[in-house]
């Protein structure tokens, strides 16, 4: 009887487990093994010990790339994925259902747009010529064109990535806010609470779990994301918007016309740091943010 229960549990979990093993565990193991090799365009597993890791420590670009990654992660999370998402969620749940849905739909557009198209639109918006959208607006006020990607590379990539992440947080937060029993708000209003006070003292404490989830999910996601940076600044100029994942990609997978400048071993060693950082962050989120508690029972009362 007990055995049958275990088998049932296993069968239930099996599809997910298989996916995790196939697409995370095995690639992580292969990447780790590859990080101890000097694999280049010949794809030979020539083991060189910890030379790649030693070279990472010596790489003069690494401090810059760590700092870029931290700014990108914290900036995108704070300003867009949590900050703007929360503001939009509060705004769209306060203005009535129809206008709320309309505004949500607008902010979902970046999600629906294919990455290459989305990046191209931003290239036109932030173009350094006077034809760029931002520069056209500035020219109305007599301000000379700004080269956004050069003068403000981190601002540019945070802006471009931010609008993609905003939609997820906005949907999760607005759903959470809408599921708060109306009695709570009404009772507070009867007691004289202002709109701001209902947000600070009722809505925010109640949606703290979704907030933590978005924070954890997006931080892990941003740590390994680079596609929009690659399509716009490509990490430049001179590594000023190069984040860790993009640096690993450039070394391991980007060659231009030459087939022989690939450095798979070194790129794998850089990726190992991402895997380790991801695992440590997951453990921290699990223990410090008490995710177990969050998942154990419904945290938002539904009437």
């Amino acid at each position, binding site marked *: 009887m007990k055995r049958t229960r275990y088998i049932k549990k296993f069968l239930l979990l099996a599809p997910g487990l298989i996916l995790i093993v196939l697409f995370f565990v095995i690639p992580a193991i292969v990447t780790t093994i590859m990080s101890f090799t000097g694999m280049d365009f010949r794809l030979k597993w020539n083991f060189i010990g910890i030379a790649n890791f030693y070279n990472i420590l010596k790489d003069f670009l690494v401090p810059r790339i760590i700092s870029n990654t931290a700014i990108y992660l914290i900036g995108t999370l704070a300003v867009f994925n949590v900050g703007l998402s929360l503001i939009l969620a509060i705004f769209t749940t306060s203005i009535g259902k129809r206008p709320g849905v309309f505004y949500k739909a607008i902010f979902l557009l970046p999600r629906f747009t294919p990455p290459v198209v989305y990046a191209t639109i931003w*290239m036109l918006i932030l173009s350094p010529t006077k034809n760029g959208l931002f520069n056209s607006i500035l020219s109305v006020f007599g301000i000379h064109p700004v080269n956004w990607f050069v003068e403000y590379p981190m601002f540019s990539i945070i802006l471009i990535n931010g609008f993609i992440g905003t939609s997820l947080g906005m949907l999760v937060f607005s759903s959470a806010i809408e599921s708060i029993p109306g009695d709570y708000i009404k009772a507070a209003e009867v007691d004289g609470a202002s709109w701001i006070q209902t947000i600070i003292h009722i809505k925010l404490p109640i949606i703290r779990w979704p907030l933590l989830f978005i924070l954890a999910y997006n931080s892990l996601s941003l740590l390994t994301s680079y596609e929009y940076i690659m399509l716009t600044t490509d990490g430049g100029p001179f590594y000023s918007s190069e984040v860790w994942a993009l640096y690993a990609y450039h070394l391991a997978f980007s060659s231009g016309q030459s087939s022989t400048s690939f450095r798979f071993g070194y790129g794998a060693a850089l990726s190992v740091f991402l895997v380790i950082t991801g695992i440590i962050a997951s453990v921290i989120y699990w223990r410090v943010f008490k995710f177990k508690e969050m998942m154990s029972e419904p945290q938002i009362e539904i009437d």
Partner: protein
Amino acid sequence: MKLRTIKTITLITACVLIFSFLIMGASCEEKINTVTLKAWAPNGGSPLRRENFFEAAEILNKQLEAAGANVRVKVECPVPGGWDAYTKANLLALGTGEPEKIADIMIIAPEDVGSFADAGYIISLDDYIAKYPETYTDIIPALWVPCEYKGKKWSVPQDTEVRMIYYHKDYLTKLGWSKNEIEKLPEKVFNGEFTLDDLVGLSEELINAGIVDKGHGFWFRPKPGADWYLYMLAYGGKLVNPETGNLFIDKAAYLKSFEFMKKVVDTGITMKGITSLDWPEWHQTVADGKVGFIQAGCYHWAEWQFRFGLDSEYAKENIGYFPIPAGVKGGKPVSVSHPMQATITSASLHKDLAFLLLTIYESVYLNSKHAVQSGHLAIRESQLSYPLYAEDEFYVKAAKISPISTMTPSMTGSGTLQKTYFQFVEGVLAGQLTPAKAVELFTNQMKSQLGDVVEVAE
């Protein structure tokens, strides 16, 4: 009865004979052996680089049939993706070592020739080339440079091009230049009388006269490429040490090239961060006539006219071109080429036939078709007078720059050098690195990544 027997025997004999003839005929049919040759070519803006293999196979099959040979060729040539996808597909196939997965003919970048030869991926072609003198003695001599490595030829040039500077003749007229002065400008560049400093000065004049906007006096290409070597070469630098055959970094020439890049940004003739423009916007701005001097490839000439609306008549009348001027008075102008290379892989099971197909692919007719369609230049002397090629004056004139063009080196590390150099160029253009800092960091980076493969002259 006897007659009947004779009739029966005759009938049986006739049937046997007919049957035998049928079998013999069928077996003759079966003797035609079809060999599948895999030819892999990147697109890179030129569909004929790939499609010409099919036409070459048709021509070869006709020749084989006429010669009574019992072999026919079928070509497999997959549609390539972008450069990254193409190079990765090649490497993954080569890594297996299995002939059925590896191409027989592979078009690669010149900087990969040495590395592929060292890895044993491609074969030396000296003996094969010697078999077809009527095709290969005609190749423009400078184009053999990237084919050669360690004293052998490992590839044949598939195409070539030159990098040059385009200018608007009508803009110079507006500055008060006479027609004679304008027409003589390329000559002054060839003689070393017109230098990079003069180019900066003239670009400033165009801006000051309001003919072009600030930042639009002189434009580089916006992305990585062999073009960035031009300025180092203009200041007397070299890519290869001719004595040792190793990659070479002359720090003084690289420093001057970085200083030139700082100068064009500081004077405002080039917009800061030109490298952050994407190709379509760059092309459109150039084709709209908003830039005074443009450093680009000869292959952009056709692209601006057919894709970006540059009026052909206007272009013919008003746009001139010359190589990149020397860095100092009396110096030599320069250009660079990145000619794609056709190779035969070691894994090929049909090397002779593959090379025969390649030789037809290299013919004047097919190569001229590719050149004219994609804006590339002649690889053979005879192409210069071949009607299909010669009917467009631009290609004949642009080919005159070929002899002074430096070829992208073929030795190991060449790709890494080119890729890394661009990062530092970008840093200087964006004002994030001083020229002195850039040259130091670049040299250290190259020494650490390439080791003994590169020589550095202080």
